[in-house]
């Protein structure tokens, strides 16, 4: 599903060069649920951005579903994001002017899905996160947990094979966090591959596979469940 070999990311300014990722190697198989942990500034988010084709890498090879991401142009990268990847962010990143229905609709519009099919998918995904009755509400009329569920519904509506979550429970209280985590587990059980960056060790332990990123490299890993052979990064 995801194969990173020798990925490096360098942020260059006039004064300083920052190596956010160095020789980063990782293989993720279809259907896995991986938690990525590590201290602040270790490169977790950079890894997630590169994995999510949100920013380019400096060196190395990244294959996503067999596609060599490094060789894609900007439009092809946008297509990959739209077709294959779903995102859940710590800050929810809902568009404030759009109601829940319209927020979930955004990626579907860019995919060119016809209106009746869009409607079906939106209703289905809002139903899945328990917010079907709030479809006409604006994001600011919801609690943080509800907003994160909308973000999950938006990610689910595109039926992505690969779901990336960056601190999905970071802005939520423990009850809400648990609900969101349960939702992610259910989505994983339904077949989606999930990579989740988190600071919360309790949540990380619930993921079948853990990766720890330190100084832009995978420093350690612990296997709670799953297939050890799946992990190749060191």
């Amino acid at each position, binding site marked *: 599903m995801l194969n990173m070999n020798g990925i490096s990311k360098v942020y260059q300014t006039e004064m300083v060069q920052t190596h956010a990722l160095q020789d980063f190697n990782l293989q993720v198989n279809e259907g896995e649920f991986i938690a990525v942990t590590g201290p602040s500034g270790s490169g977790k988010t950079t890894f997630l951005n590169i994995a999510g084709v949100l920013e380019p890498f400096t060196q190395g090879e990244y294959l996503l579903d067999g596609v060599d991401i490094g060789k894609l142009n900007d439009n092809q990268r946008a297509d990959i994001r739209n077709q294959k990847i779903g995102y859940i962010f710590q800050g929810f990143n*809902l568009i404030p*002017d759009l109601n829940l229905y319209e927020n979930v609709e955004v990626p579907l519009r860019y995919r060119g899905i016809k209106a009746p099919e869009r409607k079906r998918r939106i209703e289905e995904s809002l139903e899945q996160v328990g917010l079907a009755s709030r479809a006409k509400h604006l994001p600011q009329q919801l609690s943080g947990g509800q907003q994160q569920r909308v973000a999950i519904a938006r990610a689910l509506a595109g039926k992505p094979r690969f779901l990336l979550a960056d601190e999905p429970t970071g802005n939520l209280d423990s009850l809400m966090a648990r609900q969101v985590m349960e939702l992610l587990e259910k989505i994983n059980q339904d077949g989606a591959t999930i990579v989740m960056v988190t600071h919360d060790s309790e949540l990380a332990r619930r993921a079948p596979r853990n990766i720890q990123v330190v100084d832009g490299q995978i420093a350690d890993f612990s296997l709670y469940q799953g297939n050890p052979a799946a992990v190749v990064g060191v």
Partner: protein
Amino acid sequence: MLFHYIDLSWRSFKRTPMVSALMIIAIAIGIGVTMTSLSVYHMMSADPIPSKSSQLHHVQLLTLDEERAWWTKDDMPYQVTYQDAMNLLSADLPYRRTAMLKAGFAVHLDNSDIKPFIEQARVASADIFAMFNLKFIYGGAWSSDDEESSAAVVVIAQSLNEKLFQGENSVGKTINLDDMTVRIVGVIKDWPTYVKYYDLNNGAFREPEQVFLPFSLVAPNEIESWGNHNSWKAQSNRNYQDLLNSEVFWVQYWVELPTQQDNEAYASFLMSYMAEQQKIGRFARKELKYALRDVNEMMVYREVVNEDNKILVMLSFMFLAVCLANILGLLLAKFLRRAPEVGVRRALGASKTQVFIQHLVEVGLLGMIGGLFGILIAQVGLWGMRTSNSAYMAIADMDLTMLLAAPVIAVSVCILAGLYPAWLVCRTTPATHLKSQ
């Protein structure tokens, strides 16, 4: 997707109503000022008779002696002498032609409550009606017999017929022009032109005449021209007959030449005419020279649209550019503030092109709304021009072309102003703003 972008644009306006209103006001003022001057320019420079403009030719003859210079830019007198006009009229050629001059009379009726009033008249040949597409409501042009016999006949225009006879068929009735009683033989629709292209000697933007008399009445009735008289030769014109035989330029002459061959044939005729006149001592010069200009050439030659008008249009476009510079600044601020949302859209699969088009649709919509308000401002400006100076009565107006051009110009210039901000915002890296939201 276009409707979706329009919907997003509308939401964007509602989200930032003050900034949007400022931009719309800036566009509206810019477009209003530009369209005011452009409309006047457009009306001034428009072809006044598109179906005939390339066929109707104005004749000029260089009668001055060899060593004499004239004050026009090509040394050619604008008008011709009466004797040349009469000679050209009598030539045996298959072309419609008319000599003409402006006159004026006190118009009055016998046994009428209508007080006498002054009315300008055009004294011309019968061909003027067919040549200049003047349509008859009642009757028709005077006959060649009328011309030959110098019959006291007249054709009047619809407005005058309305004034004198309440619009009824007045053919056969008589009116008095000063002391001359003339019989009405026809009533035409008012001459539908706002540029007096057929006689530019007393201002291009004057009302066309309402009274038309046969040119054959000039000599017997000693009709005084209300137009220009110019002479290069010291002659003593002690009476009207002297004027008729003089070298004074006071008659306009037009001929209809349907094809290029006709044009060439008529040019050749003019050369032989001038050579013939040399035998009797006129056209005392080595190189014979004439000018045959069609309607549009004549409008350029006589500078109907002068340099001042062009400068005014340029200045108004510069004012529009200043308005656009302001809009560009506002758009930059507005779009860059939206970068986080664009980051989300890019992350969710929007391509740069889609983001770019979305923002261009928004500026296009701004331009459309601003353009519509601009039309209103232009209407106020044109109304102001019409009320301040009667010369602008007919030309300070927006025709359909200008009404359609206003939003097109507004949308185009707004898109031009929006290109850079839209390009800047579409280059938003998806990852940049996601963490910060």
